[in-house]
């Protein structure tokens, strides 16, 4: 079977895949040398099936080893390589070259609103700090029936299913114009993760989280611009989740 697949790949490769030169303009910043970030362009040979992450790898491995960026799994799960690609927050490992307009250079820069450390790497600590503040862990004070487990119906699980998908890549929070100017704002990702537990039938601390988010810098700073929903690489309806938390605060319960 593997031989058959290999042959098929060889047969189709010359006709389907055609390499082309793509220009990437990357916002570089080396804190030891640069006063200000600067744009640097690279020409890379790529296939349409390559991703922006492959382009960054090619640059790092073949042209300029000093290029710094984060990535781990490279398959859209770990959430390490969120960056601003052509002005939009995307995961580099999920953005295919064929989906971009390669007649123009591709602009790649670090996500906004968090302190820039080097090239495409930002300090994620403020992001994780607001994540911690919403207490993103299950808190059950009741004893489960029969001393075994807390059962949940399909509907009860469905209620918060969308917000369980978050991979904490910070694409949403760093696309939020309110977060750009006000670092105190919790940001979409923290609210999404609060939503995941507020609407969980097994959790008993919803009231505490609603209280935290009912703050001056909480959900009321959201301006419903939908930047976060557009940026989410997991397709979470972030703005809707925030609106549901707002409604829960007004009701006084989830």
């Amino acid at each position: 079977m593997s031989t058959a697949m290999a042959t098929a790949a060889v047969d189709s490769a010359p006709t389907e895949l055609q390499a082309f030169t793509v220009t990437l303009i990357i916002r570089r910043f080396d804190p030891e040398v640069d006063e200000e970030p600067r744009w640097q362009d690279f020409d890379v040979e790529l296939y349409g099936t390559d991703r922006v992450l492959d382009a960054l790898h090619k640059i790092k491995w073949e042209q300029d080893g000093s290029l710094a960026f984060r990535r781990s799994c490279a398959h859209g799960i770990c959430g390490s390589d969120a960056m601003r690609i052509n002005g939009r927050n995307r995961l580099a490992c999920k953005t295919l070259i064929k989906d971009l307009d390669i007649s123009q250079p591709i602009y790649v820069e670090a996500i906004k609103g968090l302190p820039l450390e080097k090239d495409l790497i930002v300090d994620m600590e403020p992001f994780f700090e607001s994540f911690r503040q919403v207490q993103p862990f299950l808190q059950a004070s009741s004893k489960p029936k029969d001393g075994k487990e807390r059962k949940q119906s399909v509907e009860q699980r469905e209620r918060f299913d969308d917000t369980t998908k978050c991979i904490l890549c910070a694409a949403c929070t760093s696309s939020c114009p309110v977060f750009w100017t006000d670092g105190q704002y919790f940001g979409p990702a923290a609210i999404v993760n609060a939503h995941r537990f507020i609407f969980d039938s097994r959790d008993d601390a919803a009231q505490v989280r609603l209280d935290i988010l009912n703050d001056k810098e909480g959900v009321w700073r959201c301006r419903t611009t939908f930047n976060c929903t557009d940026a989410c690489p997991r397709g979470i309806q972030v703005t809707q989740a925030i609106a549901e938390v707002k409604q829960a605060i007004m009701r006084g319960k989830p």
Partner: protein
Amino acid sequence: MTTSTATIARPTRRRGINWEKWGWIYMRVSGVILVVLIFGHLFTNLMTGEGIKAIDFAFVGGKLSDPFWQWWDVAMLWLALIHGANGMRTIVNDYVSSRSVNLALKWALLVSTVLLIVLGTLVVFTFDPCPVVAPGSEHLLASFCGAL
């Protein structure tokens, strides 16, 4: 180690009115009411009767001497000005990072809003299209005042 569930202490939030929350609710509620008030205003002024040709000093004077339209206009004035000022306040909060400029702009917003609301309310309730004038100055009055 004990088996009790660990709970992080309930965060202390200052008590009192949550202005951000009420501001947010105000925007929603006043927005819905304003849609009715503004389109009602436009409809009676522009669509009914003679339409736009009917609008002159007498038309406005007539409307402002009717308590129904007085309250309609005052409601529109208050709701729209506070709605607009609160919207501007959120924009200032979102985009002006300098503390002093931020504060100055918000004070300017507050002063201008209060001023416009006070003046507007005063005009709506005290407007008299045919005031008492000194003898000899009657020609300054609107033409329909003589009939009254």
